[in-house]
Protein backbone atom coordinates (compact mmCIF):
# COMPACT_ATOMS: atom_id res chain seq x y z
CA UNK A 1 0.00 0.00 0.00
CA UNK A 2 1.59 3.28 -1.03
CA UNK A 3 2.01 6.16 1.38
CA UNK A 4 -1.07 8.29 2.01
CA UNK A 5 -0.16 11.53 3.77
CA UNK A 6 -2.04 12.72 6.85
CA UNK A 7 -2.64 16.45 6.58
CA UNK A 8 -3.95 18.45 9.53
CA UNK A 9 -5.82 21.55 8.39
CA UNK A 10 -6.54 24.44 10.77
CA UNK A 11 -9.56 26.20 9.26
CA UNK A 12 -10.93 29.50 10.49
CA UNK A 13 -14.57 29.47 11.48
CA UNK A 14 -15.67 32.42 9.37
CA UNK A 15 -14.03 31.87 5.98
CA UNK A 16 -12.00 28.78 5.27
CA UNK A 17 -14.06 26.33 7.32
CA UNK A 18 -17.19 27.56 5.55
CA UNK A 19 -15.38 27.28 2.24
CA UNK A 20 -14.46 23.70 3.10
CA UNK A 21 -18.03 23.02 4.12
CA UNK A 22 -19.26 24.43 0.81
CA UNK A 23 -16.90 22.10 -1.06
CA UNK A 24 -18.41 19.22 0.89
CA UNK A 25 -22.07 20.09 0.43
CA UNK A 26 -21.43 20.74 -3.24
CA UNK A 27 -20.05 17.20 -3.44
CA UNK A 28 -16.78 18.41 -4.96
CA UNK A 29 -14.22 15.64 -5.34
CA UNK A 30 -10.88 16.16 -3.59
CA UNK A 31 -8.07 14.25 -1.90
CA UNK A 32 -9.35 12.69 1.33
CA UNK A 33 -6.18 13.16 3.34
CA UNK A 34 -7.12 16.26 5.30
CA UNK A 35 -8.17 16.20 8.97
CA UNK A 36 -9.91 19.53 9.57
CA UNK A 37 -9.70 21.42 12.87
CA UNK A 38 -11.98 24.42 13.21
CA UNK A 39 -10.49 27.43 14.98
CA UNK A 40 -12.12 30.82 15.35
CA UNK A 41 -9.32 32.60 13.51
CA UNK A 42 -6.14 31.71 11.66
CA UNK A 43 -4.46 34.09 14.12
CA UNK A 44 -5.17 31.57 16.87
CA UNK A 45 -2.90 29.02 15.24
CA UNK A 46 0.33 29.43 17.19
CA UNK A 47 3.52 27.63 16.25
CA UNK A 48 3.31 25.02 19.01
CA UNK A 49 0.06 23.68 17.52
CA UNK A 50 1.82 23.08 14.20
CA UNK A 51 4.74 21.37 15.93
CA UNK A 52 2.35 19.24 17.92
CA UNK A 53 0.53 18.18 14.76
CA UNK A 54 3.81 16.78 13.43
CA UNK A 55 4.64 15.19 16.75
CA UNK A 56 1.34 13.27 16.88
CA UNK A 57 1.61 11.95 13.34
CA UNK A 58 0.83 14.57 10.73
CA UNK A 59 2.88 14.57 7.55
CA UNK A 60 1.74 18.05 6.56
CA UNK A 61 -0.04 21.02 8.15
CA UNK A 62 -2.35 23.43 6.37
CA UNK A 63 -3.52 26.73 7.88
CA UNK A 64 -6.29 28.51 6.01
CA UNK A 65 -7.68 31.91 6.91
CA UNK A 66 -9.70 34.75 5.51
CA UNK A 67 -8.20 36.82 2.71
CA UNK A 68 -6.07 39.77 3.88
CA UNK A 69 -8.42 42.62 4.76
CA UNK A 70 -11.38 40.29 5.30
CA UNK A 71 -10.55 38.81 8.70
CA UNK A 72 -13.62 38.57 10.91
CA UNK A 73 -11.47 39.90 13.77
CA UNK A 74 -9.84 42.55 11.55
CA UNK A 75 -6.16 41.64 12.03
CA UNK A 76 -5.92 37.97 13.03
CA UNK A 77 -4.91 36.75 9.61
CA UNK A 78 -2.18 39.40 9.43
CA UNK A 79 -0.73 37.96 12.63
CA UNK A 80 -0.81 34.51 11.03
CA UNK A 81 0.96 36.02 8.01
CA UNK A 82 3.71 37.39 10.24
CA UNK A 83 4.21 34.18 12.20
CA UNK A 84 4.29 31.68 9.37
CA UNK A 85 7.40 32.89 7.48
CA UNK A 86 9.44 32.99 10.70
CA UNK A 87 8.18 29.54 11.69
CA UNK A 88 9.01 28.12 8.26
CA UNK A 89 12.51 29.53 8.49
CA UNK A 90 12.95 27.75 11.79
CA UNK A 91 11.36 24.52 10.56
CA UNK A 92 14.02 24.38 7.88
CA UNK A 93 16.57 24.16 10.69
CA UNK A 94 14.53 21.26 12.08
CA UNK A 95 14.79 19.39 8.77
CA UNK A 96 11.10 19.95 7.96
CA UNK A 97 10.64 20.75 4.28
CA UNK A 98 8.95 23.97 3.20
CA UNK A 99 6.11 22.20 1.36
CA UNK A 100 4.90 20.38 4.46
CA UNK A 101 3.48 23.56 5.99
CA UNK A 102 1.28 26.00 4.12
CA UNK A 103 -0.61 29.16 5.02
CA UNK A 104 -3.21 30.31 2.53
CA UNK A 105 -6.48 32.21 2.23
CA UNK A 106 -9.85 30.74 1.33
CA UNK A 107 -13.10 32.66 1.47
CA UNK A 108 -16.44 31.21 2.58
CA UNK A 109 -17.69 31.05 -0.97
CA UNK A 110 -14.58 29.47 -2.43
CA UNK A 111 -15.10 25.71 -2.24
CA UNK A 112 -13.26 25.37 -5.51
CA UNK A 113 -10.13 27.04 -4.11
CA UNK A 114 -10.29 24.90 -0.99
CA UNK A 115 -10.27 21.74 -3.09
CA UNK A 116 -7.43 22.99 -5.25
CA UNK A 117 -5.25 23.81 -2.21
CA UNK A 118 -6.00 20.48 -0.54
CA UNK A 119 -5.16 18.54 -3.68
CA UNK A 120 -1.97 20.53 -4.13
CA UNK A 121 -0.56 20.08 -0.62
CA UNK A 122 -1.57 16.41 -0.58
CA UNK A 123 0.32 15.79 -3.82
CA UNK A 124 3.39 17.66 -2.59
CA UNK A 125 3.51 15.86 0.76
CA UNK A 126 2.90 12.49 -0.88
CA UNK A 127 5.97 13.14 -2.96
CA UNK A 128 8.04 14.19 0.05
CA UNK A 129 7.17 11.00 1.86
CA UNK A 130 6.23 10.35 5.48
CA UNK A 131 7.29 12.81 8.17
CA UNK A 132 8.64 9.94 10.23
CA UNK A 133 11.58 8.47 8.43
CA UNK A 134 11.83 4.72 9.07
Amino acid at each position, binding site marked *: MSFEPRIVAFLCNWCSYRGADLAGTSRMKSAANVRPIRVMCSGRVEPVLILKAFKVGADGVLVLGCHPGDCHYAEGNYKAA*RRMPLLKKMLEQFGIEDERVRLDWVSASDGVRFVSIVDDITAKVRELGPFLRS
Partner: protein
Amino acid sequence: MAKLNLAIYWAASCGGCDIAILDTNERILDIAEIADIVFWPIALDFKYSDVQAMADKSIDICLFNGAVRNSEQEHIAKLLRAKSKAMVAFGACACFGGVPALANFTNRAEIFDRAYIKAPSNDNANHTFPQTLTKVEEGDLELPECYDTVLTLAQVVDVEYFVPGCPPPVDIINKIVDALASGQLPPVGSVFGSDKALCDECDRVKEEKKITRIYRPYQIIPDPEKCLLEQGIICMGPATRGGCGQRCINANMPCRGCFGPPPGVIDQGAKMLSAIASIYDVKDEAEVKRMVEEVVDPAGIFYRFGMADSMLKRKRM
Protein backbone atom coordinates in the same frame (compact mmCIF):
# COMPACT_ATOMS: atom_id res chain seq x y z
CA MET B 1 18.50 16.64 63.26
CA ALA B 2 20.86 14.06 61.78
CA LYS B 3 23.09 15.28 59.02
CA LEU B 4 21.65 14.86 55.56
CA ASN B 5 23.49 12.83 52.95
CA LEU B 6 24.05 15.04 49.93
CA ALA B 7 25.30 13.94 46.51
CA ILE B 8 26.24 16.25 43.66
CA TYR B 9 26.91 14.92 40.18
CA TRP B 10 27.74 16.40 36.77
CA ALA B 11 26.70 14.81 33.47
CA ALA B 12 26.86 16.73 30.15
CA SER B 13 27.87 19.87 31.97
CA CYS B 14 30.28 22.78 31.85
CA GLY B 15 31.00 22.71 35.58
CA GLY B 16 29.28 26.06 36.14
CA CYS B 17 26.59 24.60 38.38
CA ASP B 18 29.23 23.10 40.67
CA ILE B 19 30.98 26.49 40.77
CA ALA B 20 27.63 28.11 41.58
CA ILE B 21 27.43 25.96 44.70
CA LEU B 22 30.90 27.18 45.67
CA ASP B 23 29.75 30.74 44.90
CA THR B 24 27.64 30.55 48.02
CA ASN B 25 30.97 31.49 49.63
CA GLU B 26 30.79 31.26 53.39
CA ARG B 27 27.37 29.59 53.23
CA ILE B 28 29.18 26.45 52.10
CA LEU B 29 29.93 26.08 55.81
CA ASP B 30 26.18 26.00 56.49
CA ILE B 31 25.90 23.28 53.86
CA ALA B 32 28.72 21.36 55.56
CA GLU B 33 26.94 21.75 58.90
CA ILE B 34 23.63 20.24 57.80
CA ALA B 35 24.92 17.74 55.27
CA ASP B 36 27.63 15.18 54.61
CA ILE B 37 28.59 15.39 50.95
CA VAL B 38 28.89 11.73 50.03
CA PHE B 39 29.65 12.12 46.33
CA TRP B 40 30.90 15.15 44.36
CA PRO B 41 33.25 14.26 41.48
CA ILE B 42 34.47 17.80 40.84
CA ALA B 43 35.60 18.34 44.42
CA LEU B 44 35.82 15.07 46.37
CA ASP B 45 37.46 11.74 45.76
CA PHE B 46 34.52 9.35 46.10
CA LYS B 47 34.23 6.73 43.36
CA TYR B 48 31.29 5.15 41.53
CA SER B 49 31.90 1.98 43.56
CA ASP B 50 31.28 4.00 46.75
CA VAL B 51 27.86 5.00 45.40
CA GLN B 52 27.17 1.42 44.31
CA ALA B 53 27.86 0.27 47.87
CA MET B 54 25.37 2.71 49.44
CA ALA B 55 22.01 1.46 50.62
CA ASP B 56 19.02 2.40 48.48
CA LYS B 57 17.52 5.76 49.44
CA SER B 58 20.42 6.51 51.79
CA ILE B 59 21.24 9.71 49.92
CA ASP B 60 18.73 12.31 51.10
CA ILE B 61 19.15 14.66 48.21
CA CYS B 62 21.05 14.44 44.94
CA LEU B 63 21.78 17.62 42.99
CA PHE B 64 22.25 16.35 39.44
CA ASN B 65 23.54 18.93 36.97
CA GLY B 66 24.16 18.47 33.27
CA ALA B 67 22.13 16.85 30.52
CA VAL B 68 22.26 13.13 29.65
CA ARG B 69 23.94 12.34 26.34
CA ASN B 70 25.92 9.14 26.86
CA SER B 71 25.52 5.73 28.45
CA GLU B 72 27.69 6.54 31.48
CA GLN B 73 25.56 9.57 32.33
CA GLU B 74 22.37 7.56 31.94
CA HIS B 75 23.78 4.75 34.08
CA ILE B 76 24.87 7.05 36.91
CA ALA B 77 21.56 8.96 36.76
CA LYS B 78 19.73 5.67 37.32
CA LEU B 79 22.19 4.57 40.01
CA LEU B 80 21.82 7.86 41.90
CA ARG B 81 18.03 7.65 41.50
CA ALA B 82 18.04 4.26 43.23
CA LYS B 83 20.26 5.50 46.05
CA SER B 84 18.48 8.84 46.57
CA LYS B 85 15.30 9.92 48.33
CA ALA B 86 15.04 13.03 46.17
CA MET B 87 16.58 13.85 42.79
CA VAL B 88 16.99 17.49 41.89
CA ALA B 89 17.46 18.50 38.26
CA PHE B 90 20.00 21.23 39.01
CA GLY B 91 20.61 23.84 36.34
CA ALA B 92 19.23 24.43 32.87
CA CYS B 93 20.95 21.40 31.33
CA ALA B 94 19.41 18.86 33.69
CA CYS B 95 16.05 20.64 33.54
CA PHE B 96 15.70 21.40 29.83
CA GLY B 97 18.79 20.09 28.03
CA GLY B 98 20.63 23.38 28.16
CA VAL B 99 23.23 24.42 25.62
CA PRO B 100 24.43 20.81 25.10
CA ALA B 101 20.95 20.00 23.78
CA LEU B 102 21.67 22.17 20.73
CA ALA B 103 23.44 18.97 19.60
CA ASN B 104 19.93 17.75 18.83
CA PHE B 105 20.25 19.73 15.59
CA THR B 106 22.77 17.14 14.50
CA ASN B 107 23.59 13.55 15.44
CA ARG B 108 26.44 11.38 16.67
CA ALA B 109 27.70 10.54 13.18
CA GLU B 110 27.92 14.20 12.14
CA ILE B 111 29.52 15.24 15.42
CA PHE B 112 32.15 12.50 15.26
CA ASP B 113 32.83 13.30 11.63
CA ARG B 114 33.44 16.93 12.49
CA ALA B 115 35.38 16.35 15.70
CA TYR B 116 37.60 13.49 14.54
CA ILE B 117 37.90 13.96 10.78
CA LYS B 118 36.94 17.36 9.43
CA ALA B 119 38.13 19.76 12.13
CA PRO B 120 41.08 21.73 10.67
CA SER B 121 43.47 20.93 13.53
CA ASN B 122 43.08 17.17 13.14
CA ASP B 123 45.81 14.84 11.96
CA ASN B 124 43.79 11.65 11.61
CA ALA B 125 44.46 10.10 8.19
CA ASN B 126 43.52 6.66 9.50
CA HIS B 127 40.06 7.95 10.51
CA THR B 128 40.40 6.66 14.03
CA PHE B 129 37.23 7.10 16.09
CA PRO B 130 36.66 6.42 19.78
CA GLN B 131 35.11 2.98 20.23
CA THR B 132 32.94 1.73 23.05
CA LEU B 133 35.19 -1.33 23.30
CA THR B 134 38.89 -1.56 22.40
CA LYS B 135 40.89 -4.69 23.05
CA VAL B 136 44.52 -4.17 23.99
CA GLU B 137 46.94 -6.78 25.22
CA GLU B 138 46.42 -5.71 28.82
CA GLY B 139 42.67 -6.19 28.56
CA ASP B 140 39.51 -4.41 27.38
CA LEU B 141 39.16 -0.63 27.36
CA GLU B 142 35.61 0.73 27.53
CA LEU B 143 34.23 4.15 26.69
CA PRO B 144 30.64 5.31 27.17
CA GLU B 145 28.41 5.20 24.13
CA CYS B 146 27.56 8.67 22.85
CA TYR B 147 23.86 9.12 22.05
CA ASP B 148 22.32 10.81 19.02
CA THR B 149 19.93 12.79 21.20
CA VAL B 150 20.61 14.81 24.35
CA LEU B 151 18.06 14.17 27.11
CA THR B 152 16.89 16.01 30.21
CA LEU B 153 17.26 14.28 33.57
CA ALA B 154 13.48 13.80 33.85
CA GLN B 155 13.49 11.95 30.53
CA VAL B 156 15.73 9.31 32.15
CA VAL B 157 14.62 9.09 35.81
CA ASP B 158 11.87 10.47 38.06
CA VAL B 159 12.77 13.93 39.37
CA GLU B 160 11.37 15.59 42.50
CA TYR B 161 12.62 19.17 42.09
CA PHE B 162 13.76 21.45 39.32
CA VAL B 163 16.25 24.28 39.75
CA PRO B 164 16.57 26.24 36.51
CA GLY B 165 19.24 28.70 35.52
CA CYS B 166 22.57 28.70 33.80
CA PRO B 167 23.75 28.45 36.48
CA PRO B 168 21.12 28.67 39.23
CA PRO B 169 21.60 32.00 41.00
CA VAL B 170 23.23 31.94 44.41
CA ASP B 171 20.16 33.25 46.21
CA ILE B 172 18.11 30.34 44.87
CA ILE B 173 20.79 27.90 46.03
CA ASN B 174 20.59 29.60 49.44
CA LYS B 175 16.81 29.06 49.39
CA ILE B 176 17.39 25.35 48.79
CA VAL B 177 19.87 25.18 51.69
CA ASP B 178 17.33 26.95 53.94
CA ALA B 179 14.61 24.51 52.88
CA LEU B 180 16.87 21.54 53.60
CA ALA B 181 17.93 22.93 56.96
CA SER B 182 14.35 23.56 58.10
CA GLY B 183 13.03 20.34 56.59
CA GLN B 184 10.38 22.35 54.74
CA LEU B 185 10.71 21.38 51.12
CA PRO B 186 8.10 22.57 48.59
CA PRO B 187 5.66 20.09 46.98
CA VAL B 188 7.21 17.40 44.77
CA GLY B 189 7.47 18.60 41.19
CA SER B 190 8.17 22.21 42.16
CA VAL B 191 10.40 24.47 40.14
CA PHE B 192 12.59 26.84 42.16
CA GLY B 193 11.76 30.18 40.59
CA SER B 194 8.91 32.61 40.08
CA ASP B 195 5.50 31.48 38.83
CA LYS B 196 5.45 34.33 36.33
CA ALA B 197 7.44 35.28 33.27
CA LEU B 198 10.58 37.40 33.61
CA CYS B 199 8.79 40.46 32.22
CA ASP B 200 6.73 40.60 35.40
CA GLU B 201 9.77 41.25 37.58
CA CYS B 202 11.76 43.24 35.03
CA ASP B 203 11.81 46.88 36.09
CA ARG B 204 12.40 48.40 32.66
CA VAL B 205 9.88 50.83 31.21
CA LYS B 206 7.42 49.03 28.98
CA GLU B 207 5.28 51.03 26.57
CA GLU B 208 4.06 49.54 23.34
CA LYS B 209 5.48 46.43 21.75
CA LYS B 210 5.66 47.33 18.07
CA ILE B 211 8.94 46.93 16.21
CA THR B 212 9.97 47.46 12.64
CA ARG B 213 13.51 46.11 12.88
CA ILE B 214 15.36 43.39 14.73
CA TYR B 215 18.78 44.29 16.08
CA ARG B 216 21.38 41.80 17.20
CA PRO B 217 22.83 42.78 20.59
CA TYR B 218 26.11 44.01 19.11
CA GLN B 219 24.42 46.32 16.59
CA ILE B 220 23.18 48.97 19.00
CA ILE B 221 23.89 50.15 22.50
CA PRO B 222 20.52 49.62 24.16
CA ASP B 223 18.85 52.28 26.28
CA PRO B 224 19.22 50.87 29.81
CA GLU B 225 15.77 52.10 30.91
CA LYS B 226 13.57 50.82 28.08
CA CYS B 227 12.30 47.32 27.41
CA LEU B 228 14.82 45.55 25.16
CA LEU B 229 12.15 43.97 22.99
CA GLU B 230 10.73 47.43 22.29
CA GLN B 231 14.18 48.43 21.06
CA GLY B 232 14.20 45.55 18.58
CA ILE B 233 16.50 43.24 20.51
CA ILE B 234 15.23 39.69 20.91
CA CYS B 235 14.80 39.17 24.65
CA MET B 236 13.38 35.84 25.78
CA GLY B 237 11.70 37.47 28.80
CA PRO B 238 8.08 36.90 27.76
CA ALA B 239 8.61 33.15 27.41
CA THR B 240 10.98 32.65 30.33
CA ARG B 241 10.29 31.92 33.99
CA GLY B 242 11.32 34.73 36.32
CA GLY B 243 13.11 34.47 39.64
CA CYS B 244 16.65 35.10 38.43
CA GLY B 245 16.81 38.71 39.56
CA GLN B 246 17.02 39.98 35.95
CA ARG B 247 20.81 39.81 36.11
CA CYS B 248 21.29 39.82 32.34
CA ILE B 249 18.85 42.69 31.88
CA ASN B 250 20.76 44.66 34.49
CA ALA B 251 23.90 44.12 32.43
CA ASN B 252 22.02 45.68 29.48
CA MET B 253 21.85 42.34 27.70
CA PRO B 254 18.71 40.47 26.68
CA CYS B 255 17.41 37.43 28.52
CA ARG B 256 18.47 34.20 26.81
CA GLY B 257 15.89 31.98 28.45
CA CYS B 258 17.98 29.92 30.87
CA PHE B 259 15.17 29.62 33.42
CA GLY B 260 13.08 27.69 30.93
CA PRO B 261 9.42 28.23 30.11
CA PRO B 262 7.00 29.83 32.56
CA PRO B 263 4.24 27.63 34.04
CA GLY B 264 1.71 26.57 31.42
CA VAL B 265 4.06 26.88 28.46
CA ILE B 266 4.89 23.55 26.85
CA ASP B 267 7.39 24.71 24.26
CA GLN B 268 9.46 27.78 25.15
CA GLY B 269 10.94 28.24 21.67
CA ALA B 270 7.64 28.10 19.82
CA LYS B 271 6.04 30.49 22.29
CA MET B 272 8.82 33.04 21.86
CA LEU B 273 8.77 32.73 18.07
CA SER B 274 5.07 33.52 18.20
CA ALA B 275 5.68 36.50 20.48
CA ILE B 276 8.39 37.97 18.24
CA ALA B 277 6.34 37.65 15.06
CA SER B 278 3.32 39.08 16.83
CA ILE B 279 5.08 42.37 17.63
CA TYR B 280 6.24 43.01 14.08
CA ASP B 281 4.56 46.27 13.10
CA VAL B 282 4.54 45.59 9.38
CA LYS B 283 1.80 44.31 7.09
CA ASP B 284 3.51 44.21 3.73
CA GLU B 285 4.73 40.72 2.74
CA ALA B 286 8.12 42.02 1.65
CA GLU B 287 8.60 43.85 4.96
CA VAL B 288 7.68 40.71 6.90
CA LYS B 289 10.23 38.81 4.82
CA ARG B 290 12.89 41.40 5.65
CA MET B 291 12.19 41.14 9.37
CA VAL B 292 12.29 37.36 9.20
CA GLU B 293 15.70 37.57 7.55
CA GLU B 294 16.88 39.75 10.42
CA VAL B 295 16.38 36.83 12.81
CA VAL B 296 19.58 35.12 11.85
CA ASP B 297 19.25 31.82 13.72
CA PRO B 298 15.70 31.31 14.98
CA ALA B 299 16.26 27.78 16.28
CA GLY B 300 19.44 28.73 18.15
CA ILE B 301 17.94 31.83 19.70
CA PHE B 302 14.54 30.42 20.67
CA TYR B 303 15.77 26.99 21.77
CA ARG B 304 19.12 27.97 23.25
CA PHE B 305 18.40 26.22 26.56
CA GLY B 306 15.19 24.27 25.95
CA MET B 307 15.74 21.98 22.97
CA ALA B 308 15.61 18.65 24.81
CA ASP B 309 12.41 19.67 26.55
CA SER B 310 10.67 21.03 23.45
CA MET B 311 7.78 19.61 21.44
CA LEU B 312 9.90 18.07 18.70
CA LYS B 313 13.03 17.53 20.88
CA ARG B 314 15.37 17.19 17.94
CA LYS B 315 15.96 17.87 14.26
CA ARG B 316 14.46 15.43 11.82
CA MET B 317 17.49 13.77 10.25
